[in-house]
């Protein structure tokens, strides 16, 4: 069966520091992968998605970037965090039009 991992689970970072969040999927090959952000008490905003290694599509212009160095690895990065980057970040993979989500990373930028 497929499983999706995210780490770290929680992260507190100062403004201006870099960011790297990692997502890995097990049990499937060449999945579509997604990064979402959820602000407190609000819906999900699609940030990036990837249909294959090195293929990244950005949905929302911002100071974040994504990379897919391996088939089942998806990384969300920033060179300099902003206060507005705080939120809950979810990674997902897609199968048969259904997306399955990881446990998420809580990011607090101070």
């Amino acid at each position, binding site marked *: 069966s497929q499983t999706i991992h995210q780490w770290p689970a929680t992260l507190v970072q100062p403004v201006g520091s870099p960011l790297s969040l990692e997502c890995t999927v097990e049990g499937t090959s060449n999945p*579509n992968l*997604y990064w979402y952000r959820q602000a407190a008490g609000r*819906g999900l905003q699609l940030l990036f998605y990837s*249909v294959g290694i090195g293929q990244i599509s950005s949905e929302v212009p911002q100071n974040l970037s994504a990379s897919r160095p391996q088939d089942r690895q998806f990384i969300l990065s920033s060179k300099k965090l902003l206060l507005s980057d705080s939120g809950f970040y979810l990674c997902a993979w897609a199968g048969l*039009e*259904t997306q399955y*989500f990881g446990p*998420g990373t809580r990011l607090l930028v101070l």
Partner: protein
Amino acid sequence: AQTVTQSQPEMSVQEAETVTLSCTYDTSENNYYLFWYKQPPSRQMILVIRQEAYKQQNATENRFSVNFQKAAKSFSLKISDSQLGDTAMYFCAWASNYKLTFGKGTLLTVNP
């Protein structure tokens, strides 16, 4: 652009009763999928139920069922025999070409 609207920001229901959450969507496409996801306080997004637009039969998963009205672009979720563990935020979502569009969610509280 596709939109998904959940008109009920919050709802509450007594344990063991039935509750219906509403969702409408707007799309010009004919082939798509609809979902309900549950997000409990842990914030893990959990798939509750899925409906293919080309299927007329409403999807059912144990205590959860949907009322899919394609012409009206309506996709409501009915929870029967509500349990305390059903307390969560519920998101309706529309999908085509592997991209999801989410509604803003309905916070459901099940009271003992």
